């Protein structure tokens, strides 16, 4: 019996993720913790602050190629976006437009807006979206990594879907309203947020990969996410051409999908329809990817 191989991405902190994803000693942080850019809102409320306001931004290398990296700390206030946190992300994206790295690596681990900073947080998320589109407009791809304990929800769920590629682990989750929000608003009959298996069948990495919303599905290992970055660097997918026609085509596809699959209430129903098998949720990542490929 050996140890579980490799460091878990889900259990790693934002800083450990950055260190594990980039070439050794290649990271240079912007607005690091010593700058003490902490949240004035949390301080005013008498709540604990963090020296980096829960996000690490800077520049490093992946196989020598320069990348901008953004990593949210899911353990600090659920990775929620506050004013400073959001400004750091926006600033990193704007700097990327100027400095033209090979790509922007965006480790999303967030439930969305930081409620304590509601308006500032909402503004920050829309600024992030605009800045991200500007990066893509400059021809620089943005790759989202979603494998933290908070997943990518709320505004950050939208941000993830703007990216050119989304790397997820099975443990990662991606959605708009979080499970608890849906249960609160629509009732437990509509969605039982405590049914963890259901939550993952509806928002988890496997269903997102099945729907094509995640580009790659990897195991919950830092090294697996790193390997995914290496292969993205070579394949360099682009989300979609930024033309009105292309957008309309995607819109049509989504409308068709919504009609075709309107009766599906659960990821398993889709897997059944596709013939993936009753044990789709249980399969390990490699097997799942293989089955998907066979059916494609």
């Amino acid at each position, binding site marked *: 019996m050996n140890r579980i191989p490799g460091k878990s991405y889900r259990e790693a902190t934002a800083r450990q993720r950055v260190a594990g994803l980039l070439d050794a000693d290649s990271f240079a942080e912007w607005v690091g913790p010593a700058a003490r850019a902490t949240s004035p809102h949390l301080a005013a409320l008498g*709540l604990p602050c*963090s020296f980096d306001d829960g996000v690490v931004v800077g520049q490093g290398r992946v196989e020598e190629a320069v990348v901008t990296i953004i990593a949210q700390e899911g353990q600090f206030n659920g990775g929620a976006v506050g004013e400073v946190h959001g400004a750091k992300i926006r600033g990193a994206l704007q700097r990327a437009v100027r400095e033209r790295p090979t790509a922007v690596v965006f480790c999303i681990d967030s439930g969305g807006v930081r409620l304590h900073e509601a308006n500032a947080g909402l503004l920050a998320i829309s600024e992030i979206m605009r800045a991200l589109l500007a990066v893509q407009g400059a021809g620089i791809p943005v790759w989202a990594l979603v494998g933290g304990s908070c997943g990518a929800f709320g505004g950050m769920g939208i941000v993830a879907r703007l990216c050119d590629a989304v790397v997820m682990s099975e443990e990662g989750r991606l959605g708009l309203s979080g499970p608890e929000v849906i249960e609160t608003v629509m009732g437990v009959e509509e969605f039982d947020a405590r049914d963890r298996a259901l939550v993952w069948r509806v928002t988890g990495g496997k269903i997102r990969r099945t729907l094509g919303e995640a580009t790659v599905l990897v195991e919950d290992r830092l090294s697996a996410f790193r390997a995914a970055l290496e292969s993205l660097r070579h394949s360099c997918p682009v989300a979609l051409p930024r033309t009105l026609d292309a957008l309309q085509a995607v819109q049509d596809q989504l409308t068709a999908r919504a009609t075709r699959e309107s009766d599906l209430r659960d990821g398993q129903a889709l897997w059944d329809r596709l013939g993936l098998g009753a044990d789709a949720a249980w399969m390990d990542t490699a097997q799942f990817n293989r089955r998907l490929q066979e059916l494609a």
Partner: protein
Amino acid sequence: MESFQYDLPARPCVALPVRAELWGVVSSGNLEVLVETGPPPDQCRFQVETSAHGFSEVWQAVLEDFVTRHAVGGLSFSIHDAGATPAVVSLRLEQAMQSLKAP
């Protein structure tokens, strides 16, 4: 939040870090510690902000023991604490020291 600062006599740190290092995370029962240079070589400075009130004596005892164990003169440790137990505090400080010693 409760804040306090301790300046403790310490043996000089032989290899001062080139850049600030942050360890740990501010989450329930956990803390972050930022290690920087600054104080005179025979002094170590601790700045603590904590959400758990009434523990300044415990903090002082934990930090005094830490200073006895390690040569940390010339270093400053800034801590944001969200209710970590002394065991976790000590462990994070040890991990921060390890990262300083590592090449």
